[in-house]
């Protein structure tokens, strides 16, 4: 198993600003995943972050809007850039494999 800590747990942001979410894992992992959960909806994969390489983004998500860093095997950040109210969501960090994923508690962002 893995213990995942995310910061911030929640935030209220102004339109047009950017916010960086941090994800810390208690063990070294190769792949980290970032998901978005919009209000009342399911989880959608934003990107996969491998240490030492560029993140791989899913269809509909771009690096300019959601830049990701992966400086080492236990840490990653996701930035939500130039936010709009449509970005109000829970953002979840995840590690593991297709056999089992472990999730952080999420970062709940509200954009006004």
């Amino acid at each position: 198993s893995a213990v995942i800590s995310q910061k911030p747990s929640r935030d209220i942001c102004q339109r047009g600003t950017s916010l960086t979410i941090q994800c810390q894992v208690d063990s070294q992992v190769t792949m980290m995943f970032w998901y978005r959960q919009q209000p009342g909806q399911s989880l959608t994969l934003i990107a996969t972050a491998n240490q030492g390489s560029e993140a791989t983004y899913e269809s509909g998500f771009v690096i300019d809007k959601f830049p990701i860093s992966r400086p080492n095997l236990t840490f990653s950040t996701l930035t939500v850039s130039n936010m709009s109210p449509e970005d109000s969501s829970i953002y979840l960090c995840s590690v593991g494999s297709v056999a089992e994923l472990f999730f952080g508690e999420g970062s709940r962002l509200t954009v006004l």
Partner: protein
Amino acid sequence: AQSVTQLDSHVSVSEGTPVLLRCNYSSSYSPSLFWYVQHPNKGLQLLLKYTSAATLVKGINGFEAEFKKSETSFHLTKPSAHMSDAAEYFCVVSDLVGGYNKLIFGAGTRLAVHP
């Protein structure tokens, strides 16, 4: 591409009564299927998974699910609901995309348990 459909967005049961959360999948091959649970303000947790072994899968907290290929279903059940079971439940299928596996989440079913 694989997909999952959770047939009920909300299910409400009384404590001590059975729970049934329905999930249908579409697949061009034998899939891996999962149920995850998300308690309020908590991260998701794996309840159980099916990976082509026994069709009846037992998970944590008394939950189980049966893989029925003829019905393309993977319904989640529990004989007796507990108040602590109130949460959001996601049916998930593994899909092979671009040469690697990724998880496709259903829309979720919110389970309410009443005294």
